[in-house]
């Protein structure tokens, strides 16, 4: 499994990519592997204000239903509507086509974020 170097990671196995004031969220390859086949993704409403660490989406697999937490604070500006018809994209392309939401960042608040190397070490522990 490769862990992209251009992303940041959380202890709850979410990834975030920050481009200017826009943050893109998803769950990591490790997370989708642990969850198994994803069958449904509940997306947040556009304009919803999220606090860092707030549950903003729900990922349902054949094994479990899991909350997904926002790594940063901000307002939802876009969601990946393709996941409504093809939730399996989270399995096949967790770091790319399986992105879940984009947020316009507000403030500096974030949950604890890790680099790719730090996340790799975290996984090995």
């Amino acid at each position, binding site marked *: 499994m490769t862990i992209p170097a251009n992303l940041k990671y959380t202890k709850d196995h979410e990834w975030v990519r920050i481009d200017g004031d826009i943050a893109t969220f998803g769950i990591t390859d490790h997370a989708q592997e*642990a969850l*198994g*086949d994803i*069958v*449904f993704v509940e997306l947040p409403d556009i304009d919803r204000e999220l606090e860092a660490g707030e549950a903003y989406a729900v990922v*349902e697999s*054949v*094994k*479990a*239903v*899991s*909350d997904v937490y926002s790594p940063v604070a901000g307002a939802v500006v876009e969601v990946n509507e393709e996941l409504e018809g093809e*939730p*399996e994209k989270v399995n096949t392309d967790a770091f790319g086509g399986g992105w879940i939401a984009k947020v316009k960042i507000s403030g500096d608040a974030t949950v604890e974020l890790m680099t790719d190397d730090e996340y790799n070490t975290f996984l090995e522990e």
Partner: protein
Amino acid sequence: MSESVLNSNDRTFKYSATNGIQHEEPLLFEHAHEAPESIHLPGVEGDIPDALAVFSRKIPANIPGLSEPETVRHFVRLSQWNHGIETGFYPLGSCTMKYNPRVNETVARLPGLAHIHPDQPEDTVQGALELLYEVQEWLGEISGLPHVTLQPAAGAHGELAGLMMIRACLDARGEAERRTVLVPDSAHGTNPASAALCGMHTVELKSGADGRIDLDVLKANLNDGTAALMMTNPNTAGAFETDIKEICQLVHDAGGLVYGDGANLNALVGLARPGDMGIDCLHINVHKTFATPHGGGGPGAGPVAVNDTLAAFLPVPRIVKESDNYRLDSTSDASIGSILSTIGQSGVYMRANAYISAFGRQSLHKIAEDAVLNANYILHRLKDVYHVPFEGVCKHECLLTDEIQNKHGVKTLDIAKRLIDLGFHPMTVYFPLIVHGAMLIEPTETESRETLDSFCDAMLEIAAQCEAGNTDALHEAPVKPFRRRLDETQAARKPVLVWPQ
């Protein structure tokens, strides 16, 4: 009998076979006939009056064209593909699939109990009311929470009723801002769902390294917004919450109440009482602990027992006893009201009464003792071959994982599916969520040592098959039933729920 071995000398099954007489069976609408064959309505003589004609059907009813025996066979055949507690061992963890004694059915079918109506005058159903009242008294004594409602129609309904009482109690104290329910991450999924339905929001508590509630995590999350802690004891990892008294004290000191999920009461019944531990409110799954049927869609029951703090908020009507008479009492200012149109699922409680009475006060503890012993027996036989995430003795269910088998590419789902081939219902898989690849095994007290051994033998054989590299058989399992490994993913992603006309 290809794989099954019946040794006539020591009379023990290695494991049972599943290759009996079974029939393939299409869906109802796939049967060939065009017209309904079992319905023959008389023709109409003369004209249908206009007043009635407006109700006549404009489009065909599309009733499948089956005769009566075809219809009966359809459902009986489907039922034969199923595995129930009366087919074989059913160690579904957290679900307490214990055998339902026949005598319970006999009692529930007595005409004086079965052929009565909820709206009958009270003086014509004194016997039934007495039996229901007895159940209330029993459940109050067993739980250590003396005030009981029999109304809720399921465990989750009981959760909602309990949380509504807690909410009403907090409102009566002038603390309507308390709306947060703390829920451990090992909780049953119904717990946060019930809290949400009750207009509360939940905060998840991360379990400690031993799978139990971490006191520091609990303390850090208690505040002026805390309405309740919702917990299960023993928890879903099969472990007793050894800090339970301190946990309840901390929540009470913070101004909150403690809701107990009674799903695992089978480990405690007759031995320890949630009320004595400090729990304020507990729902009881009579279909688990007290051997009433698990359903088929109902009717179910999820009675709730509460302490003095919450007594005033119980639903009405309540069954009360006045000298030797029983009546329904609806007078209560603080009650949350009715949560069912009747006083409860009478037939279910007649079965529970029969079950509790059969043990009596002296013997009820044997239920818990044997349930715990059986679970530990399985744990002991399997612990060297399957990974045990939390050390120590378990309560009524034991928790294993697929960590060792993972090295060979075999997962919990493969092990569960292979058990079907070997004649057993799988254990609960992938729950609790805090354990990767969880396998939760709950044998209940009603199984013999021979049954437990045959299950353990099957589990050991699966592990051996895995070690020997014979993993294809595990990935393909089950191969014996009519329907082999079902595509659970497609069933969830692209469900076909309606017959395409």
